[in-house]
C-alpha cells in the first residue's frame, strides 16, 4: 500500500491509486487525448475500405467520454489506434502530449473479452503489469491486493479465471488494467458480453471506481443507455466510413447510478441521440439503395 501513495495530493490517500498528476501547468492545459484527422484504411479483397474517415476529437484530463455507434462503424478501431495496437494510420494521435505508435503502460485497456491469462491466479493476473514494469513480486502483489479489494474480489484472489463468472472476470480485467496506474483508460465494449443485470451492476461499479481513480476514460459501446449513464460527453459515430456525427454533453448530476434511466432529462438526451442515429441510418439506407 505504501508504495502506491502519492503523499499530499488528497486526504483520502487510498483512493489516489491511479490519479494522473500532470507535471506542469502547461501540461494540464493540453487535453489528455488529442485525435486529429485520424483516417484508417484497410486493404480487403474487394479493394480499399475506409474504416475511419478524418476523425478528430479531444478528451480533457479526467473526462469520461463514450463513443457510440453501430457495429462496424470503426469505433473499436479508433480505440485500438489510441491504444497503439492499430498501425499504420493517417493523422495524428497524442496521448499526454506524446505521439502514439505503440502500446504504452500509461494507457490501460479493457477489451470486450476479459483476456485474462488462464494460467495465472486473479492476484498474479493483476500483478502482471507491475511485474513487467520492473516492480518486485512483493510490491506487485501489494498493488494487486489493493485492487482486488477495490473490485470486491477478496475471496477470489487465489482463484483461476476459469472458475469465475463473466462479470467477475471482467472486474479482474479492469483491476489488471488499473494496476499500472494508467493516465488513460480505454474500454472497448467491456460489458457487451454480459447479461443485462450484470451489466447494470458493472456500470454502477465502474462509476464508483471512476470517482476514486480519476483517470481519463474513453469507453466504446453500441448501447446508448450505457453511454448516457456513464459519460460526461457522448460522441456518436456513423458507419461506412466511420465519422463522428455529433457530440452531446451529458449534464446529468453525479454521483450517478442506473436509477437515472427514468429521469426526464435523461430521456430527452436519449431522444437526441436516437434522432441523430435514425437520420444517419436513413441516409445510409438510401445511399446503399442508390448504388
Amino acid at each position, binding site marked *: 500500500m505504501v508504495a502506491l501513495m502519492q503523499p499530499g495530493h488528497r486526504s483520502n490517500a487510498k483512493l489516489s491509486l491511479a490519479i494522473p498528476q500532470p507535471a506542469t501547468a502547461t501540461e494540464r492545459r493540453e487535453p489528455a487525448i488529442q485525435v486529429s484527422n485520424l483516417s484508417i484504411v484497410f486493404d480487403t479483397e474487394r479493394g480499399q475500405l475506409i474504416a475511419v474517415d478524418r476523425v478528430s476529437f479531444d478528451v480533457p484530463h479526467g473526462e469520461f467520454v463514450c463513443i457510440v455507434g453501430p457495429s462496424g462503424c470503426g469505433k473499436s478501431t479508433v480505440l485500438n489506434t489510441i491504444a497503439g495496437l492499430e498501425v499504420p494510420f493517417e493523422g495524428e494521435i497524442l496521448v499526454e502530449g506524446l505521439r502514439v505508435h505503440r502500446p*504504452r503502460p500509461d494507457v490501460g485497456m479493457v477489451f470486450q473479452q476479459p*483476456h485474462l491469462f*488462464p494460467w495465472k491466479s486473479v492476484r498474479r493476473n493483476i500483478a502482471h503489469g507491475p511485474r513487467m514494469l520492473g516492480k518486485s513480486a512483493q510490491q506487485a502483489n501489494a498493488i494487486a491486493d489493493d485492487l482486488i479489494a477495490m473490485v470486491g474480489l477478496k475471496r477470489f484472489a487465489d482463484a483461476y479465471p476459469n472458475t469465475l463468472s463473466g462479470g467477475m472476470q471482467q472486474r479482474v480485467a479492469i483491476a489488471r488494467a488499473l494496476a499500472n496506474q494508467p493516465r488513460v483508460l480505454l474500454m472497448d465494449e467491456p460489458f457487451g458480453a454480459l447479461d443485462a443485470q450484470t451489466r447494470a451492476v458493472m456500470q454502477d461499479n465502474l462509476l464508483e471506481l471512476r470517482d476514486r481513480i480519476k483517470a481519463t476514460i474513453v469507453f466504446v459501446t453500441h448501447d446508448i443507455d450505457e453511454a448516457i449513464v456513464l459519460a460526461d460527453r457522448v460522441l456518436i459515430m456513423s458507419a461506412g466510413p466511420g465519422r463522428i456525427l455529433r457530440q452531446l454533453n451529458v449534464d446529468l448530476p453525479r454521483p450517478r447510478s442506473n436509477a437515472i434511466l427514468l429521469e426526464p432529462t435523461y430521456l430527452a438526451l436519449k431522444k437526441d441521440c436516437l434522432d441523430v442515429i435514425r437520420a444517419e441510418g436513413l441516409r445510409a439506407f438510401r445511399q446503399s439503395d442508390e448504388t
Partner: protein
Amino acid sequence: MVPDTALKPDEGGERARERADAGRLQRLNILIGALSVPLFVLLWELVARSGIVNIVLFPPPSVVAVAIFEWMRSGQFFLDLTASIYRVTTGFMIGAALGIFLGIMTGQFPIVSSLLSPLFHILRPIPPIAFVPIVILWFGLSETGKLFLVVWGVFFTVWLSTHIGVQKVDRGLIRAALMLGTPRRQMLQEIILLGALPYIVVGLRTAVSISFYTLVAAELAGTFAGIVYRIEIAQQNLQTGQVMGGLAALGLISFAADRMFAALAERTVWWR
C-alpha cells in the same frame, strides 16, 4: 433409511430406493469390469488346451506365465527392459526437445517457417519404419541408429503440435500483455509458451506411443538386447510362450508410460 426432512415420507422412501438401485448397478459394473481380464485368460487357457489349435503355436496363459518367470529369473528380462526403456526415453527426450525448439521457432518467426516448414511437411509423412534400411547402412547395428529412428518418429509429431500451438495462442492475450507493458522478448516465456502448452502436451503424449512403434522397428532391425529383440529371438526358436510374454511386457510398459504421461500432463496444464 436416511432422514430427509425436505421430502414427504413416501417420497423420501422412493428416493432412497432409487439411490440404492443406482448403487447396486454401479457395484455390478465394477464387478463385471474386474472380471473382464480373468475371463479372457480363462477362455484362452481352455481354447489352447482343447486341442482345437496347435498348442505349440498358441500356448495357454499358464505356459506364457512360466516363460515370463524363466525370463525374469535368468536376469535377461532386466537387461532387455533397461535397453528398451533407455532407447525410448533418450530418443523421446531428444526428439521432443528438438521438436519443441523448432516448433517455437517456426511458429514465431515466419522466415524460419518459410525455410523449414515445406521440408518438414515432405519428410513428416514418411513412416519412420521405412528408414530402417538406410539407418542400418549409416549406423550399422549401433545404438545411434536406434536412437535416430525414435528421435525421427517423435520429432515431427512434437514439432507440428508445437508449431500449431504457438500459432493458435489467443491474439487477445498477446494484445492484453502488450497493453500491460510486457516487453517483446518476455512475451515468449510469459504468454506464448504457456499459451501453446496444451497443444505441446497433446503432441508429446501422441509421441509417447509413436516412440514405442519406432522402438519395435529399431529393435527388429537388429540389436543385442531389448524386449522386441527377445520376441524376435524367441520366434526364431519357436518359443511361442516367450513371444507372447514379450508382447505382454511391451503392452504393459507402453500402457504405464501413457498413464504416467497423462498424470504429468494434468499437472503441467493445471489451469484446464
